């Protein structure tokens, strides 16, 4: 159990980065997990060259930590890089093999979630919502 609720996960879950609404003009996408009722509002600043995401959520520690790590991972990326990273990390969460040579060591906590199948959707919710949001930004 300590493997799941390890220090990095609790740190990001309790004190998430990029939590709140951006001051600049932004577009928002709501993500919702109908199985548990968790909600995330993901904001992306408009008129910036690279991605800049912030979020608010009523969600569990895992979802919140995953969202915090996501913003740290993809902010400052280009749109195309952002989409690539999202797909890569979502696969990593599902299989427990996020490449820690590529991503921050803090992301290791997300590699444990595969052992708790009922919680995978908690970790995926921010990333799925980000993918939809970037799609909105691109006008897909």
């Amino acid at each position, binding site marked *: *159990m*300590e493997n*799941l*609720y390890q220090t990095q996960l*609790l740190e990001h879950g309790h004190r998430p980065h990029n939590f709140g609404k951006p001051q600049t003009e932004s577009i928002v996408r709501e993500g919702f997990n109908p*199985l*548990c*009722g*968790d*909600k995330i509002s993901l904001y992306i600043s408009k008129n910036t060259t690279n991605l800049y995401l912030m979020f608010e959520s*009523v*969600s*569990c*520690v*895992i979802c919140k930590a995953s969202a915090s790590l996501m913003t740290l991972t993809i902010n400052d990326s280009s749109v195309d890089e952002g989409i690539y990273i999202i797909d890569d990390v979502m696969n990593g969460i599902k299989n427990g093999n996020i490449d820690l040579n590529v991503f921050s060591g803090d992301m290791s906590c997300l590699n444990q979630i595969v052992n*708790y199948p*009922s*919680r995978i959707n*908690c970790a995926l919710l921010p990333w799925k919502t980000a993918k939809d949001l970037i799609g909105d930004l691109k006008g897909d």
Partner: protein
Amino acid sequence: MKNQLDKTFDIETIRGEFPILNQEINGSPLVYFDNAASTQKPISVIRSISNYYKNDHSNVHRGVHSLSVRATEAYEQSRRSIAQFINAAFDHEIIFTKGSTESINLVANSITQQINANDEILITTMEHHSNIVPWQELCIRTGAKLKVIPINTNGEIDLKALKQLINKRTRFISMVHVSNTLGTINPIEEVIELAKSVGAYTLIDGAQAAAHLAIDVQSLDCDFYVFSGHKLYGPTGIGVLYGKEDSLNNLSPYQYGGEMILKVTFEETTYNTLPHKFEAGTPNIADAVGLKNAIDYLGMIDLDKAHNHEMAIHDYALDQLLCIPNIEIIGRANNKSAIISFIIKDLHPHDIGTILNQKAVAVRTGHHCTMPLMDHYQISGTIRASFSFYNTLEEVDVMIEGLHMAINMLG
């Protein structure tokens, strides 16, 4: 007054009859407190399904050979047992369905032709989605209005508000007998009486009630009463729609096909009589047999003692929970079943549920398919412990220990 354990209730023998309870999860003995989601099955129910398939299976009705006769007899015997269990006036007032959800959908669909744009349908704030969405859809089809009976902070329906809401336009009241989230036992007798005073139909969702309260549909005098087999120590995939003979006859068929017809030509079809009118296609015979055995099992234990035992577990658990800092109990009705929903400040129910599972404690976390009720309390979800007569005080202690562990780990 708190309920106390009755030492003459033979809990060890009862637990021995539920083989699933005798196992370890994550290295600890299973503590199953998710009985409102689904109850476990006694060995007699499990064996009855296996024996049916080993010895008696064929398709029901119409067959002239011995197996078909046996299968038909077993299926119809189940219907008779259920009719007796809820004191229906006639066996043909029992319609087999997949469960409570399908039973409600059947009624909400089949009543469409009787509802018009001036009509009003009443439900309560504490309904399960299965007793909200079918009525929303009925209102979309017909233009009728869906109105919601409010609840107070304890989670009890506001009868004064109901008296103001009910009027001659009220065509249907559909409400839960026991709330799956709050445990509230609703005063359905009073509501049914009020409904009858304006000529409205009544449907009672008894999914959480049938396993814990004695149901007498003739005394209640409701038009429809629904429940699921799997919450009554029976199999999944089988449930019951009880309807008064006249009320069922007033409904259009729900599905069309074999079994539900008397005569078919390419020009027209004549529908069968009750109960077959509502049982198109080959029914779930094996699980009907299992449900009959679940009812037989409940007939063999002292239900008053079983209920007292559940409430003693509930009362003890409530006392222990209230000692935990920052805990809030959601639902404090005076008349309550053995369900406790709670939240702990700043901790998410899912995280607590995952940590409890590590100690082999199975609770349900989330909105419990009652999102509007969560909105009412302005929360996203709760932790729900729901008890059965096979639970023990020692199991409550394990849950409390697990909650302290979760608080330490997540805090």
